[in-house]
């Protein structure tokens, strides 16, 4: 099953990924080939087989809710592309 150009555009939008015309074309072809290869999994009978999300039986790793040392605000902001007044700065997200 090949993937359509429209689907590739839709997926790129979901992934918040800008793509050039050239990339869009290359990915449509390549994803189609890779997904076609993945069709092989349909041959496997997985009725009543539970999915594995984690390979070791660790569940509910908890710790006590106590104050611990953490990054200073200054260190946390040091890599920010833009920061102001102790906060990350982003383009305006509301109208008006």
């Amino acid at each position, binding site marked *: 099953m090949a*993937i359509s150009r429209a*689907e*590739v555009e839709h*997926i*790129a939008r*979901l*992934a*918040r*990924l*800008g*793509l*050039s015309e050239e*990339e869009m074309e*290359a*990915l449509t072809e*390549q*994803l189609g*080939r*890779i*997904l076609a*290869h*993945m069709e*092989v*999994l*349909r*041959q*496997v009978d*997985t009725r009543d*087989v*539970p*999915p*594995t*999300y*984690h*390979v*070791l039986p*660790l569940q509910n*790793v908890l*710790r006590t809710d106590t104050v611990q040392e953490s*990054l200073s605000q200054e*260190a*946390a902001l*040091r*890599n*920010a*592309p*833009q920061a102001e007044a102790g906060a*990350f700065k*982003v*383009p*305006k*997200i509301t109208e008006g």
Partner: protein
Amino acid sequence: MSATTKLTATRLNRLFLAGELSAEEIVEAYIERIQAVDGQVGAYLTVTAAEARERARKLDARRKAGDTDLGPLAGVPIAIKDNICTQGIRTTCASRILENFVPPYDATVVSRLQAAGAIIIGKTNLDEFAMGSSTENSAFQVTRNPWDLSRVPGGSSGGSAAAVAADLCAAALGSDTGGSIRQPAALCGVVGLKPTYGAVSRYGLVAFASSLDQIGPITKDVADAALLLSVIAGHDRRDSTSHPDADRLQRIQLSGDASLSGVRVGVPREYFAQGVEPGVRQAVEEAIAKLRELGATVDEVSLPHTEYALDAYYIVATAEASSNLARYDGVRYGLRAEADSLLEMYLRTRQQGFGLEVKRRIMLGTYALSAGYYDAYYKKAQQVRTLVIRDFEAAFRRFDVLVAPTSPTVAWGLGERVEDPLAMYMADILTLPANLAGLPAISIPCGLSQGLPVGLQIIGRHFDEPTVLRVAYAYEKATQHHQARPALGQ
């Protein structure tokens, strides 16, 4: 060229502690070697010469002052794959999006190495975000195989493996999601160990696929792999997937017993089928004969779902990657492309910051997780994963370890597979099942084919690194393959 850079980590540490080599002499020997040779190899993205010299002076002063608790890696220069955070030292993941990222903290493995006296000598090249099998997906530079500069070093930890093979560090750390430690170790003729999932803390490892990623050592011999593992393994409260049993691995002792009597070795027949080169097959079959000679019992075994592992892996890995890489949005760190709206800022930042393979995987993963396709791809892949795990469980009821080639081929030519993502994905076909199952696996040199190194892979049960290392060590002691080194710059 200095003989110092040829020494193992174990030996360097002994010479340093005995006062026969100062840490400064050791560091200078490596910096000289890097200056002489790394222009050809391209293993390092960052060489931390100033920090390494400073640290060496401190170690020398402590030793002279009579400090006897300097650590099992004191005086040993170690390279770190550039997807592992180093405080105050640029950590790029070989991506434009993190080109200027300077972590505010050290990864747990880096802290552990330093507590053991190690000297960080630099950060090594990789496929962008560890996505690739040849290191050619780096946004910054090509790394060449020290055995033949026209060939790839493997990947994604190609910089670390090439650095160890070319004597540009005593040992290195890599990360392994589908073979990224073992495959480059095999192609560069060195030792690479992927520990059990949960054995080594991933705090400070930039996440690629969280149910698969594991940090491990790349070294010149098996004893060094055991030494580094004992230093970096252990439970860490900062990594919720870190396992309480991990502390056991801090006390690994290699047995001096050369015999493998009583060890049951399984040879999975499916690992000798799919596109394994004759030269690779021959070297591995000779290695299996050697294990038998050493007293192991050897028998064939079937892992029937092997042929489905590749596709299941690439669904799981890309799905997790698409989620993990959502954090690169131009807000808190990394590249930001300016735009008037937030959405446009996201789109442009990620378009400019990510390379094509990363985009391909984000797209594939997003597709596999998207409405309408989740059951057919992601859930199906995780069910197939269960079947791959059951194959291993059945095999380990009869055998203590499984042995196979690490890579179906020796190192291929630079550029040969760049245009064909599926051919590149095939490079991991023999290594990724161990990641799907979370099992420990090592690659050790087992000879040459066409003048290029071949790796023998040994896979063990969860947290049974001691048996994996025992088999590897016995084989290494009985052969000379690990002593073969490229002629580069000698």
